[in-house]
């Protein structure tokens, strides 16, 4: 089939069994790739109620449908599993070249189940698949693991996805590192660790054939011409993703600070790329097949953090390990980012967990006795850096934080739940929902917990318009049903594997041409929205099967009880009534019942009758 590797690779680490299943044409047309394959394979291969860190969970790697082709920005590949952090649908995406490599090797998804008897890594060498000993790599950082595997295999072009010590120690906020990019969210590094799988290594040397190579060349030339001179691309290339940090801080007043106690960070200027790029950055770096590179290589040459070399910090990390922990020192920010990448921690979850611990400490709920004598006040550089190490190794206070803020607050109690920032267990990204109410709904409705990327609703909320949605009022709870549509659009991006930053160039209307060139599929824009909706409903069904409903589509108490204290969104809050109003609108737009459960009629409309049967919907 054009545009595909052609097979799904199933590996059981318990029995060492390897199966290669043909990708059926019907399945390919219905779920298309990436997020679509990941969600459906997860639904079909994992039963309800299993332990996310047990052998019955599956870790799935699924490249976007356009990965491995020159569609500009088609870099995104996803890992999927039941999340140990949320107990629900788990998903993490990154612009790693491992997705393209997997397709060149002939596979459109890899499904890993079971648990290896000893620490191992999986070696996918085109048609040959082997499970190799990794016991000598235990404790290795992520970059050292990559180096060791390339050395052992004797090929410097082998692509890997690996975990650091955090994943080995089952920190539920562990990420998977690959191609110097991070599959950050929902703790999938711990799933990999629970399987005693240190890494996945892939070498693919086969062809991806295209339905229409000439059309592909034409589209590449046209879109390169558009994107490479686009003002958004130029801004991203210059300063990376944090280019608008000053705006969200001052114009919107929605930059979460000190564990969301404040929404304006007085120290934002020094963590903004406008300050540190000219001073510290030596080059610009891209994800796979990206022509608007936003990565910044940050190098520190002198002082206590000399020797730090990291790709980043990106916008989310400028918040999580910057404002959220009260840190305005860019060198500490870069060092903390490097530690997360090397130890294998999601920067968002790790930063929010530390922010929560700092607030606990300042309120006297955690004492020097709990922190091993460490002074855990906001902005304390040593506390930030030391705690990251402790989390990754599950030592001292780090053991508490390694399970994420929901679990940590439950264990500590003492009222700390009221300022534990999470939805469904996932720590939120850098958008203060109280001043961007649509993103508040999106945090609540997202299938993987508090997330900005599943909807990109912040795009419309911050600027007032995106795509066909105009006059979006960020401070109102009215008119937010558009979130359901943008979720479908962004799911579509995750299905084809296009970067969310492409939303400035590609809209749904542009995608059919790429399908013609790559797969030869003929889609209308409306059908593509339906595809995004279908896959979103599969994810939702996964969560429904786990017992989640309207009660879980909620927000952290702080966002509903404590109005923003200062800045341009001062006084704004999302009341319980407002959230309910937004959820009612949203469920209605989705065709779900008032409890947030998909109806049989909706699932049948989306050709998901089998799932409706499985959920025993009437």
């Amino acid at each position, binding site marked *: 089939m054009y545009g595909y590797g052609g097979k799904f690779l199933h590996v059981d680490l318990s029995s060492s069994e390897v199966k290669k299943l043909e990708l059926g044409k019907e399945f390919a047309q219905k779920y298309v790739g990436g997020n679509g394959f990941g969600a459906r394979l997860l639904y079909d291969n994992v039963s309800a109620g299993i332990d996310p860190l047990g052998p019955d969970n599956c870790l799935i790697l699924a490249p976007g449908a356009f990965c*491995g*082709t*020159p569609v*500009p920005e088609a870099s995104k590949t996803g890992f999927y599993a039941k999340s140990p952090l949320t107990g629900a649908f788990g998903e993490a995406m990154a612009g790693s*070249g491992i997705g*393209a490599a997997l397709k*060149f090797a002939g596979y459109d998804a890899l499904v890993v189940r079971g648990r290896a008897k000893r620490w191992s890594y999986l070696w996918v060498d085109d048609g040959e698949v082997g499970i190799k000993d990794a016991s000598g790599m235990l404790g290795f950082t992520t*970059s050292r693991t990559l180096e060791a595997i390339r050395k052992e295999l004797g090929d*410097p*072009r082998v692509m890997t996805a690996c975990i650091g010590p955090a994943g080995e120690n089952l920190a539920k906020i562990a990420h998977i590192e690959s*191609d*110097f990019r991070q599959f950050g969210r929902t703790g999938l590094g711990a799933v990999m660790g629970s399987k005693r799988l240190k890494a996945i290594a892939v070498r693919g*040397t*086969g*062809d*991806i*054939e*295209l339905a229409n*190579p000439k059309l*592909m*060349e034409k589209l*590449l*030339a046209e879109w*390169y011409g558009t994107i*490479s001179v686009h003002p958004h691309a130029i801004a991203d*290339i210059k300063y990376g993703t944090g280019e608008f940090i000053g705006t969200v801080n001052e114009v919107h007043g929605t930059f979460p600070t000190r564990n969301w106690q404040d929404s304006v960070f007085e120290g934002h200027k020094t963590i903004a790329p406008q300050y540190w790029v000219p001073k510290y950055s*030596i*080059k*610009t*770096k*891209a*994800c*796979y*097949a*990206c*022509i*608007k*590179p936003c*990565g910044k*290589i940050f*190098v520190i040459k002198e002082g206590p953090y000399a020797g730090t*070399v*990291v*790709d980043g910090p990106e916008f989310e990390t400028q918040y999580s390990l910057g404002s959220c922990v009260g840190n305005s020192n860019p060198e500490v920010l870069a060092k903390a980012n490097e530690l997360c*990448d090397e130890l294998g921690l999601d920067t968002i979850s790790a930063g929010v967990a530390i922010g929560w611990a700092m607030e606990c400490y300042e309120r006297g709920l955690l004492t020097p006795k709990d922190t091993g004598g460490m002074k855990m006040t906001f902005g304390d550089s040593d506390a930030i850096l030391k705690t990251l190490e402790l989390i990754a190794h599950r030592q001292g206070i780090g053991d508490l934080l390694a399970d994420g803020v929901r679990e940590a607050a439950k264990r500590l109690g003492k009222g700390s739940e009221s300022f534990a920032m999470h939805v469904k267990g996932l720590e939120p990204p850098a958008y203060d929902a109280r001043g961007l109410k649509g993103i508040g709904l999106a945090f609540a409705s997202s299938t993987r917990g508090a997330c900005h990327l599943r909807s990109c609703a912040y795009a419309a909320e911050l600027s007032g318009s995106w795509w066909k949605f105009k006059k979006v009022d960020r401070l109102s709870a009215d008119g937010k049903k558009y979130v359901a549509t943008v979720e479908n659009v962004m799911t579509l991006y995750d299905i084809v594997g296009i970067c969310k930053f492409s939303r400035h160039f590609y809209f749904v209307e542009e995608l059919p041409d790429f399908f013609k060139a790559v797969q030869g599929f003929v889609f209308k824009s409306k059908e593509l929205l339906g595809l995004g909706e279908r896959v979103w409903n599969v994810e939702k069904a996964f969560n429904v099967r786990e017992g989640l409903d309207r009660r879980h589509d909620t927000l952290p108490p702080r966002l509903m009880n404590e109005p923003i204290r200062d800045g341009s969104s001062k006084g704004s809050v999302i009341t319980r009534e407002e959230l309910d109003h937004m959820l009612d609108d949203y469920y209605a737009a989705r065709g779900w019942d008032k409890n947030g459960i998909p109806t049989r009629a909706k699932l049948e409309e989306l050709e998901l009758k089998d799932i409706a049967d499985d959920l025993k919907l009437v």
Partner: protein
Amino acid sequence: MRLLVFKNKCTGCRLCELACSLRHEGVCNPDKSRIKVERRSVALDIPTVCIQCDKRFCVAACPLGALSVAENGSIHVDESLCTACGVCQMACPFDAIRMHPSKHVAMICDLCGGEPQCAKYCVLGALKVG
């Protein structure tokens, strides 16, 4: 005409590999690309491609006369003569020659007949036509 490589500007996107294989082979396959990019560390991406050097070590080394200099200055591989013996790879000090994985002939940049696809899509100008 020649390709100029500024490796410190390489973002490591590897779009050049895809564009090259698409133009020359009609498929997407980095192993069939005349240019290769290695992402060696977080900071280092190294593109390697024929730079049409003055010495033409490969042409001189080929024992079968399969390599010649084309009008635009690129190296032309006569696929009917080439046996993939690898002597040109030995001779190239820039490691810019690869073997085609299925056709068993040397793959050397031909400058795409005047508009090299790799340089065309190199957004920060790590590859330029000089």
